[in-house]
C-alpha cells in the first residue's frame, strides 16, 4: 500500500547514497530549496509596501527623533512571498501527516474556525471600544464560558489566561488567595513525579515549595505516599488527569477527598482533557481548579508555538478569587467587569485586556461543530486510536504500563536494550519515515520514554501505516542496523543539528558580517 508509485522503501543503503554526484550549482535539490535570511536577500532600501506621501510638517517628538540606522532588511512583495513560502516547506505540520506528540494533542485544525475568527465584527474590534458596540463579542465569550463550564461541571471560569501555563498560574493564585483569606500560611504543593515541568515552575511563582509524589509501578499516583505527604502545611495538589503516563488516576476521588480533608485544594492540569471531554466532568471528581488548553482539546492551531489559550474553571470555593475581567449579563445586555470592586476577593489581573479572544472564537466554533454528541465521540475515538496503536505495537516495543490507556500510550526504551540505539535516535529515524517523532524522554518516570498520542483525527488506514513504519524501524534496530538511527535524519531539509554548540556559544540574531 505504501509503495504504489514504486518508491524506494528499502532505506538501508541511505548512507551510501552518492550525494556528491547529485551536487547542484544552487545547492537546491529539486523542490528542496535552500533559503537565505532576509538580511542576506534584502536591504534597507527595499520595501514591499506603498504608503501615502507625508506632507511637510513640524514634528512634535520633543527632540528625541530617531537618527540611527535601524538596519531592517526589506523585501518586495513577491520576494517576501517566495521567502516565507520556501521556509514553510521546511516545516512538518498536522496538515501533512500524523503528529504523535504525547500530551500535545495535535489534532486537525478546521478552517471554518479560521474563517469565523476573521469576521470583521469579531476580529476588527478594539478591546476598549464602548461595551455597547461589542455586545456580540461579549456574547461569544459568555457562550464559550457556558460550554466550558458545562463540559467540566464547574460553576465558575476565568477566561483571560493566555496559555496553559498562564492558566496554571491563575489556578494556583486563586488557591493562594483563598488560603490567605482564611489566614493560613501553607507552604507546600504536592505534584507527582510525572508532572509537566510547568507545574513546579508555577508553584514556585506562587511562593510554594514543591514536594514530589512517587508513582506506583502501574503508573498511577502512589495513594499511600500521597496520604503520608498530606498535612496542615499542604496548600494544594497539582495533578494531571488523565496523567502523563496516559492513564486515568483511578483513585482521583479519594485523592480529592484526602486533600480537602486537610483543608487543601485540588488543582487539575487539564492538558489531557481530550481523553475525557463529554465523558467525564472534572467537577464530579472533586477538582477545585483546572486549566483547559484550547489549543489542545479544542483545536486552536499550535502555530509553531502559540498563541495558546488557557481558561481556568473554578469550584464554588475558589470562584470569589477569580481574576478580572469577567463578563456579566443583565437585562441591559452583556458587560465586562474590569476592575476589582471594593471588598472583592479577586487576586487581580493576569493580562491587559480580556484574554485570547481570537482563540476563544476558534475553540467555540470547534465545540459548536461537534456538539455535545460529537465531543464525547472525540474523546472515545482518541482513546480508541491510542489503544489500537498500543495493542498493535505491544509485541514490538515495550509498553511501560499495562492498558487500557487513555488518549496516549507510553513506551520505554527496553526494546532497544543492547542495540546501542537511544530513544532520540529512534525518534529521529521516524523523520525519515515521514513522521514527526513522538514525545521523548517525558514523562521522567520511565527510562527513555516515548509517548504517542495519535488523536481522533487519524483514520485507521493512517494508523496502520504509522504502525507499519514503527514495526519496520524496530526490526531494523533489532537487526543491528545502527547507522539508520545514529545518523538520522537523512531525508529532512537538514541533518541532525548541533544543539550543544548553539547553547555553548549562543548566536541569537543576525549581525552584519565584518
Amino acid at each position, binding site marked *: 500500500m505504501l509503495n504504489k508509485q514504486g518508491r524506494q522503501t528499502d532505506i538501508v543503503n541511505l548512507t551510501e547514497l552518492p550525494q556528491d554526484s547529485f551536487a547542484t550549482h544552487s545547492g537546491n535539490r529539486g523542490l528542496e530549496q535552500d533559503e537565505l535570511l532576509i538580511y542576506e536577500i534584502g536591504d534597507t532600501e*527595499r*520595501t*514591499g509596501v506603498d*504608503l501615502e506621501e507625508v*506632507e511637510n510638517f513640524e514634528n512634535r517628538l*520633543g527632540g528625541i527623533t*530617531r537618527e540611527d540606522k*535601524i538596519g*531592517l532588511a*526589506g523585501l518586495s*512583495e513577491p520576494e*517576501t512571498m517566495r521567502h*516565507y513560502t520556501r521556509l514553510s516547506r521546511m*516545516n512538518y505540520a498536522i496538515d501533512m501527516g500524523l503528529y504523535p506528540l504525547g500530551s*500535545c494533542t495535535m489534532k*486537525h485544525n478546521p478552517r471554518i474556525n479560521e474563517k469565523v475568527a476573521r469576521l*470583521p*465584527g469579531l*476580529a*476588527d474590534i*478594539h478591546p476598549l*471600544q464602548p461595551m455597547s458596540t461589542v455586545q*456580540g*463579542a461579549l*456574547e*461569544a465569550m459568555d457562550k464559550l464560558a457556558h460550554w466550558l463550564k458545562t463540559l467540566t461541571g464547574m460553576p465558575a471560569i476565568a477566561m483571560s489566561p493566555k496559555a496553559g*501555563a498562564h492558566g496554571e498560574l491563575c489556578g494556583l493564585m486563586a488557591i*493562594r488567595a483563598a488560603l490567605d483569606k482564611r489566614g493560613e500560611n501553607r507552604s507546600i504543593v504536592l505534584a507527582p513525579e510525572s508532572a509537566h515541568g510547568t507545574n513546579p515552575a508555577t508553584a514556585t511563582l506562587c511562593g510554594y515549595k514543591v514536594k514530589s509524589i512517587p508513582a506506583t509501578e502501574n503508573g498511577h499516583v502512589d495513594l499511600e505516599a500521597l496520604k503520608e505527604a498530606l498535612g496542615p502545611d499542604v496548600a494544594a495538589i497539582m495533578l494531571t488527569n488523565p496523567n502523563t503516563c496516559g492513564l*486515568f488516576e483511578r483513585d482521583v476521588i479519594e485523592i480529592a477527598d484526602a486533600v480537602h480533608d486537610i483543608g487543601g485544594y485540588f488543582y487539575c492540569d487539564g492538558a489531557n482533557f481530550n481523553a475525557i471531554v463529554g*465523558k467525564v466532568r472534572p467537577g464530579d471528581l472533586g477538582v477545585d481548579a483546572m486549566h483547559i488548553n484550547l489549543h489542545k482539546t479544542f483545536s486552536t492551531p499550535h*502555530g509553531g*508555538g*502559540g*498563541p495558546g489559550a488557557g481558561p481556568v474553571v473554578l469550584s464554588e470555593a475558589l470562584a470569589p478569587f477569580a481574576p478580572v475581567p469577567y463578563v456579566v449579563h443583565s437585562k441591559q445586555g452583556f458587560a465586562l467587569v474590569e476592575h476589582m470592586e471594593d471588598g472583592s476577593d479577586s*487576586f487581580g489581573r493576569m493580562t*491587559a*485586556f*480580556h484574554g485570547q*479572544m481570537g*482563540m476563544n472564537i476558534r475553540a467555540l*466554533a470547534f465545540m459548536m461543530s*461537534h*456538539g455535545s454528541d*460529537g465531543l464525547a465521540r472525540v474523546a472515545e475515538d482518541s*482513546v*480508541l486510536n491510542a*489503544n*489500537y496503536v498500543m495493542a498493535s505495537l505491544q509485541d514490538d516495543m515495550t509498553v511501560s504500563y499495562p*492498558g487500557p*490507556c*487513555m488518549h496516549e500510550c507510553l513506551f520505554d526504551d527496553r526494546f532497544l536494550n543492547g542495540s546501542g540505539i537511544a530513544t532520540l535516535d529512534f*525518534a529521529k529515524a521516524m523523520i525519515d519515515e515521514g513522521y514527526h517523532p513522538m514525545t521523548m524522554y517525558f514523562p521522567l518516570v520511565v527510562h527513555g520514554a516515548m509517548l504517542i498520542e495519535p488523536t*481522533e483525527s487519524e483514520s*485507521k488506514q493512517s494508523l496502520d501505516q504509522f504502525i507499519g513504519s514503527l514495526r519496520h524501524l524496530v526490526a531494523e534496530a533489532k537487526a543491528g542496523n545502527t547507522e539508520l538511527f545514529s545518523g538520522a*535524519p537523512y531525508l529532512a531539509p537538514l541533518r*541532525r*543539528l*548541533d544543539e550543544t554548540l*548553539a547553547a555553548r556559544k549562543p548566536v541569537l*540574531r543576525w549581525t552584519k558580517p565584518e
Partner: protein
Amino acid sequence: MRYLPLSHNDRTEMLAKIGVRHVNDLYKDVPATALLKEPVDLPDHMSEMQVDRDFRAMAEKNIPAGSHPFFCGAGAYRHYVPSTVDYMIQRGEFLTAYTPYQPEISQGTLQALYEFQTQVAQITGMEVANASMYDGSTACGEAVLMARRASRKKKAILSGSLHPQYIEVAKTATKYTDDVTVVNPVDIYDADALIDQIDDETSCVVVQNPDFFGNLQDYSKLAEALHARKAILVMVVTEVVSLGAVRSPGSMGADIVVGEGQSIGNGLSFGGPYVGLLATRQKLVRTMPGRVCGETVDADGKRGYVLTLSTREQHIRREKATSNICTNAGLCTLAFTIHMTLLGEKGFRHLARLNHAKAVKLADKLAAIDGVEVMNDNFFNEFTVSLPIDAARAIERLAEKQILGGVPLSRLYPDNEKLKKQMLVAVTETVTDGDMDRLVSELKEQVNAK
C-alpha cells in the same frame, strides 16, 4: 461527524484488536459514578454552514473598527496589515506546526523566529531578543521578575504613567514572590521624580515611552542613575511603530525592553492574541524568560537554527526555571516578521512618520475647538484630550453616530475624578481626513451643546 474519520466498521475492528467489546471498557479506571451516562446538556453537532451563520449573527452585533472613523489606542492599535501576511500565516505548514522541538523538520518556524529576534533587537536598539511572550503586559510582569534575577535585588519602581493594566499585571506577577512593587500615582512619572526614589534595594524602574498618556521622554539620565546603583532600566513600548521615529530604548540606556508587538502584522482581535516583545543585553540572556532561537550547524556543517538556552526553562529546570512559560506567541510573531519584512527600514520609518503627521494634524484640529485642550507638548501617534464634558459620555454619544472616538481615561482609572473629562485619541495611517473632520465636527457639537 465531518472531523472524525473512523467508520463504524473501523471502530468494531479496532476494539476487537484491542480485545474489548465496548469503548467504555477502555474507561475502566474512571469511577463508575463519574462516567456520564448521557451527553452533557449542550446543543448537538452542527453543519459548517450553521456554524458560519451563528458566528455571523454574533459578529453583526458589533461595530467593527474598519467601517467607521476610529481613534482607539491605549495599548492596542489599528494598522493596515498587508494581505500577504494573513495569507502566509494561514499556510498549513506554519499554522498547524507544533513548537519547533524537532529542528530538522521545523526550519521554517525557526528561521522565521531568528529573523523575528533580529528585527526586535534592531528596532529596540538592543543586542538580543527572545522568541516572544504572550503579550506586552505579561512581558512587563516577566521583565520585573527578570530584573530581580539580574540585579539580585527585590524592589521594582513603576512609573505612574505606565499603562494601568500593565501595572496591575506586574503587581499580580509579583504578588506571591517576595518582591516589592512600588506603584507611583499617575502624576509621578518624569525621570527626575523617579530618580529620587532609587535606593540600594531597587532592582529596576519601569517606564513607558511613549507613556500611557502619549508623552515622550528621554530616559538617559534615569538609566545613568540606575546603573550607578547597579539597578536596571526596564522600558515598555506599547506602540512599536513609534520606534521608526523615536529614539530607541537601547540608545537611552535601557537594559530590558518589553513591548506589545500587535501593531505590526496583527489585528485588534478584541485584545488578543497579541505578541509580547522582550529584548535585552547579551550579558543578561541567561536570566531571560521564554523561548529563544539560536544559530548552529547540522551534521553536514550546514547552517540551521534550534531552540536554545533551554537550561533556563521549566521543562529542564522545573521549580528553578526562570519562568513557567512554555509557549510563545508563535503565529503572531510570524505575522510580525512578515509585515516587518514587507516594510523594511524604509517602510517602517515612513509608516512611523505618516502616523505622527496624522496625529499632529488631528491634535491641532481638536485643540482649535473652544474648551478642548490637547494635554501633550509632544507625542507620537496618540495624545490626551481634555474636554469640558464627561469623556465617557462623549464617547458613547460618538458611538451612537458610528464614530469610535477614543478611550475615556475613566475606563482605566474609574476612581480618579481628575481624569473624568479626559480621553486618549490615537491616529494611525488608517485614519482619513474625512474621519478627522467627522470626529471634530461631532465633538464640537457636543461641546457647544453643553
